[in-house]
């Protein structure tokens, strides 16, 4: 069998994919933090643009992948913006300019602006999160958290294994609901289904723990298959990220 480079491989080989996930994480956190200090319209737009551009150009994330990750975001941003504008106290201000009136409901300019600002911030926060998520490989992140972040191995690799068990949990739920239907009962959210789900999750966790121990997880003198270091690239990523942020703040 020939190994065909997958999309994930291309992302992993990109500058952002190769960078220490803690470097990209600290940039993402700095951007999010800066967003929370402003109510202007421009910074969230610029942060969104920067995050998307970085993921596409420096992370080589395929556009379709990124678009799929961002898809639910438009609806969320629209509804957050719309309802904040609609329910804003500024609508009751008699001196404000009315943009839209429908019977007793009216939308004023300041309310619309506030709603827009909030909606845009939701867009920016999700865009940064999705962009970081798409360039970050979970294994790489776990290795970095253990090797640079000094997170206990047992916790970090346990969490990584648990992350993979999530699809299994969904399958367990389907199976338990089917089991109820096969007894002629409604496939509802019966408490017994939830208990069953918990029992199955615990049993899976138990087995996984035994399997990890059987493969020498508890043994001293553990070596590392992947050595994650802090390299010049990582310092560069952090510096560039901060520089972009400074530019965005200055443009305000």
């Amino acid at each position, binding site marked *: *069998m*020939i*190994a065909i480079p*997958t999309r*994930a*491989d291309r992302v992993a080989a990109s500058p952002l994919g190769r960078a220490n996930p803690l470097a990209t994480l600290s940039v993402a956190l700095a951007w999010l933090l800066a967003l929370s200090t402003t109510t202007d319209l421009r910074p969230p737009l610029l942060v969104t643009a920067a995050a998307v551009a970085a993921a596409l150009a420096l992370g080589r994330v395929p556009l379709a992948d990124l678009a799929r990750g961002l898809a639910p975001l438009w609806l969320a941003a629209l509804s957050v913006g719309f309802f904040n504008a609609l329910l804003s106290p500024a609508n009751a201000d008699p001196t404000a300019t009315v943009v839209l009136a429908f019977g007793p409901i009216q939308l004023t300019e300041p309310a619309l602006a506030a709603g827009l600002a909030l909606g845009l911030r939701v867009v920016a926060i999700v865009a940064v999160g999705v962009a970081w998520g798409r360039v970050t*490989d*979970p*294994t790489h992140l776990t290795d970095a958290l253990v090797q640079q972040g000094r997170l206990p191995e047992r916790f970090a*690799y346990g969490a*990584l*294994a648990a*992350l*993979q068990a999530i*699809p*299994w949990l969904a399958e*367990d739920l389907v*199976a*338990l609901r*089917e*089991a*109820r*239907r*096969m*007894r*002629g*009962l*409604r*496939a509802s959210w*019966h408490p*017994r*289904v939830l208990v*069953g789900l918990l*029992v*199955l999750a615990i*049993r*899976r966790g138990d*087995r*996984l*723990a*035994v*399997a*990890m*121990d*059987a*493969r*020498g*997880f*508890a*043994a*001293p*003198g*553990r*070596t*590392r*298959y*992947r*050595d994650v270091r802090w390299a010049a690239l990582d310092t560069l990523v952090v510096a560039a990220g901060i520089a972009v942020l400074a530019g965005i703040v200055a443009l305000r």
Partner: protein
Amino acid sequence: MSGVTFDLAPGACLVVAGPSGSGKSTLARAIAGLVPWAAPGRLDGDLRLDGHPVASTDPAALVARIGVVFQDPSSQLVMERVEDDVAFGLEGRGWLPPAMRARVPIALAEAGLAGFERRRTARLSGGEQQRLALAGAFAPHPGLLVLDEPTANLDPQGALAFAERLAVLRETRETTIVLVEHRADLAWPLADLVLALAADGTPLALGTPADLLAGHRPALVAAGIWLPDEPMSPLPAASGPGGSGRRGEPPPADGSRPPVAEARDVDFAFERGIPVLSGLDLAIEPGARVALLGPNGSGKSTAARLLVGLLRPTRGMVRVAGRDPARIAPRDLARLAGYVTQDPERSFLAGTVEADLLLGLTPDERGRAGDVAAALGLPLDRFGARNPFTLSGGEQRRLSLASQLVRRPGLLVLDEPTFGQDRRGYEGLLSLVHARVEAGTAVVAATHDLRFAADLGGRCVRLAAGRIAEDGHVAEDAP
């Protein structure tokens, strides 16, 4: 499990055989040095590995020499990517990075997974996960390899390839192998020693396969242990005599009675663009016996779930007793079509065997529940109060079968009903199935077990890549 004694020479292969619930998996865990520090239990007596008493050796040092593959490969894969998962065991044994990078691709290739390095473990099929678990256990060159039902998730071809790989391993005599396996035809030819356990967990016999077959045959058969040299009824050829044999063509209906279930030109996909079944045409006549065969991932389980209305087709139509299953009330549907899942642990909905069995039954059905359970080797006076999760794999499977049989549905669909069954469980299953067929129930079994397909003795439908590849009947004159 108690009173087990054996001596295993380095490089030898021990096969552990025994009925369901005799403690085979427990023994495997103990031999792997995991009791009591990692797996629950208490160990009395003297267990030595490489001459070191297990009780007083540092577990980490023990485990470093041992590779284990448990039942259920999905719950022993740790890392997100295939290569990291193989490396996981090497890291724990202190291998240096260059040695690991050299070893991982070789271990994968040996397990038949060359080129899978960057694949995600969660996306692998059951058979591939099993191969990966083996690659991970074997990568560190363990002195002892402990395998618990390793062919469970493999189709016949995969199981055969696995047995061949073990045979190669045994030839080199570098690794001692302990193999727990119901498939005697695969396991016994590999064995230097066979340890047979009785139902109560005490040793029944220990010796070379030839000794056991010569000296203990009746005792082994009585204990419900499969033997390697039992003849199997022949399976139908591509289109056996008497079979309709034509590709994709359902056998002619007699027209007097409607099919108990039928699929007409059904497509099914869980994810758009990734079809599981395409153009499935299948009609199940009343009282029919149908074996649904096909390799891992060919869509057998999906077809089974469609036929009982658990899944709705993406395209085409499914009818149960002539009606759209989506329009039949759940309590009525469960009496028209029964389904026994491949994974019984995921079908238990109560804290005791009795409560689980009685769930959703009418008073009439409750009256016969005890008899059904007893016929399947689960008498309620002994098993009724037990927690279903504490049963052995074979017992769990029979419990989930009992809870469907008791409703006497017109169609009974079984997904891998014989996996992990000892001889007694198998025979009980077979006679119950035949009794239901006599009473007019149609039985459909999705299975890798060619012996069961032959013993079922009806129609064989073979799926390949989501389509019906063959549809034929077992010859009437088959022995």
